[in-house]
């Protein structure tokens, strides 16, 4: 389909009429480090239209009819995968999903070979998740097909970063001067890394809060290297959370204790759990987000997770809308 056609497919509403596609330079979506403000805004603008579609009784539109979107997950996932597949289906695309943990990859086939097979099947985009940082870059370097990174190792999770910022904007409007705090296992977190890049355009402050063992050694130097002055690192949660508008705890995996990165779950909870008493130091209307899956009672208390300040369900809904926007931009454009 051509770019002038989407309004008949996506929406009859004017919200979808004039997205400035000229800004869009991406063949792939690998991380938010190479997204300009205009490109991020464009994703949000289109995602707003998608939110309206999701509010309808009949959610399906024919925008990507005739397109095939493949998901290839080399690591178990339910939420992200379901979100992408629903996004593709609502847009009318055909989807094929390969569970790479059980396929030929498990039999020793290389990543590039597996993906070349998919390319030979002429899919329009490949959504991939991989436990190794950089795997989608390997794919993008060796394939012509568009790659959408649905999470690579510790490195990036761009659609999550986008949906997080989209959700914040939906709630707070202009994010200038707002303070977000990401708490927990920054070391292993692709969500934190993508949020670092994504938030840089919006005049926000981002505090990364974790014990020293869960912060990458080179992070301070990295922030300095790229002049990411909106980000600070803080080990004390009470200091971090002061006057915060948004608090986002990260999942704490049980293996972290076994590997010695935290002394004990008890000590971690005392220092870093997000619960009502902890949130008392934040702004009264502080919002709580979580990229999921949650470890209730560990990094977040259940009353906060399901309380009135929680945006966790909105994140899930917005996740579908943002991913619809990405698929529209990647697979809905001119045939490349």
């Amino acid at each position: 389909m051509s770019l002038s056609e989407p309004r008949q497919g996506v929406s009859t509403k004017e919200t979808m009429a004039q997205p400035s596609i000229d800004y869009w330079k991406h063949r792939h979506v690998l991380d938010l480090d190479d997204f300009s403000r205009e490109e991020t805004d464009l994703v949000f603008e289109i995602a707003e239209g998608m939110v309206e579609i999701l509010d309808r009784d009949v959610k399906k539109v024919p925008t990507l009819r005739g397109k095939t979107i493949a998901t290839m997950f080399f690591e178990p996932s339910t939420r992200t995968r379901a979100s992408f597949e629903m996004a593709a289906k609502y847009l009318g695309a055909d989807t094929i999903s390969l569970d790479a943990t059980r396929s030929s990859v498990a039999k020793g086939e290389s990543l590039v070979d597996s993906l070349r097979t998919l390319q030979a099947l002429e899919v329009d985009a490949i959504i991939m998740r991989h436990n190794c940082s950089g795997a989608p870059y390997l794919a993008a370097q060796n394939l012509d097909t568009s790659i959408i990174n649905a999470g690579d190792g510790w490195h990036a999770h761009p659609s999550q970063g986008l949906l997080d910022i989209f959700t914040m904007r939906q709630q707070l409007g202009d994010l200038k001067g707002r303070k977000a705090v990401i708490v927990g296992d920054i070391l292993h977190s692709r969500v934190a890394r993508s949020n670092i890049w994504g938030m840089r355009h919006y005049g926000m402050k981002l505090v990364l809060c974790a014990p020293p063992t869960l912060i990458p050694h080179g992070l301070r130097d990295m922030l300095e290297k790229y002049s990411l002055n909106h980000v600070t690192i803080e080990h004390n949660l009470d200091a971090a959370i002061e006057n915060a508008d948004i608090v986002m705890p990260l999942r704490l995996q049980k293996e972290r204790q076994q590997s010695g990165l935290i002394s004990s779950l008890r000590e971690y909870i005392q220092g870093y759990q997000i619960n009502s008493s902890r949130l008392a130091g934040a702004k009264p209307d502080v919002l709580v987000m979580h990229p999921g899956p949650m470890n209730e009672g560990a990094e977040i208390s259940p009353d906060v997770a399901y309380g009135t300040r929680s945006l966790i369900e909105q994140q899930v809904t917005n996740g579908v809308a943002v991913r619809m926007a990405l698929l529209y931009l990647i697979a809905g454009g001119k045939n490349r």
Partner: protein
Amino acid sequence: MTNNLLLIKNARILDPGAGIDETGDILIAEGKISKTGKDITKSGASIIDASGLIVCPGFIDLHCHLRQPGYENKETIASGAAAAARGGYTTICCMPNTNPPLDSAATISYVRELAARDAPRVRILPVGCITAGRAGKELANLTELADAGCVGFSDDGSPVSDTRIMSLAMENTAMLDLPIIDHCEDINLSQGGHMNDGWVAARLGLKGIPAAAEEIMVARDIALCELTGARLHVTHMSTAGSLQLIRAAKKRGLKVTCDVTPHNLTLTHERVMKTQNGAQTLLAYDTNARVNPPLRSPDDIEALIGGIADGTIDAVATDHAPHTAEDKLCEFENAVSGISGFETAFGVLMSLVHSGKIGLNALVTSLTAGPARVLRDKAGTLQTGTRADIVLLDIGHEWTVDVQNFLSKGRNTPFAGCKLKGMVMATISSGQLSWHHSSVRIS
């Protein structure tokens, strides 16, 4: 060369080990350097006109991987030796991490036989294992290995973690008067690491290998060297901290030497992420820049260059580590470590000379007299009567690294496509040409 006479004319003869830097001729007879001087003539000799070229002792590499036996798909002794000759090397020490490893007299003898048969024009000196099977649990039969002809001991790639085992090994190697060629890495600290611990690792979401993982082991083994009196050679040293420890140990008069690789002298960890320009700029996660020890920080490089310049670093060693394309066409975390280094070493190192960071004398020393001293070997000089191991260099020759033309089977190098200035034009081993560039004429 029917009568084994070869005359090199009009060369700049540079032999820093012997304090020679002069223009003249070299006459080679019966595989040995017979005469050096001006206006030598000899009837019946083949003549190489070396005008504009520098003639040095053949290069000596203390650290390479020839992969045979066991990994002939990566390299063979024949292909590795051909690549070495092209790189100017006439003597190379091959590491024992083959399959089976070189931990017995039989495997050492096997490699020496293969070398004599398949690579007669490069002197190949095998390094034996420190521990049986390179497992770090019990000592290999070190005396047996020495008797079979190994020139040193190393469990390269699998550092000896058990301090007591290392101490026992050094007591033995002190008696044998052979060096431990030490891959220094505290694997408890480096475990699971993929690259240098720093901002690039943080950026790419890769686990870092801290400099301390190397320095802890350098410090430990210097202490053991002092305890046992063994000769300790720290190989492919990569950090400023290691250099400091070695400098101090040398000052105390300990028998400690060290080498550094061309890539650790010239590339930083940023090379791993070097972006590739296409329609969309992509992070590279370049597996050809994955190497152990990893590419380090600019501060480390600066310190190491200082170590070459002031002679604290005895040698540059390639750590030539050929791999197949499949070994590298994969996720960064799953890629094997190593760089195919013979054929680019000199050109890469010359960049440091051209930029004025080190002198040509210091560089040539680190490739000749320096490593010879580590091995206590007679090679590495052009003095009359020694083996005619010679290299002819054109330090101004510009060329582009084309891995498709490599003689090594391993095309894994972060220098692919790089423009280099400085080339080995011919290599002579025991008086015989082992490699020469097409522009070199022999009449």
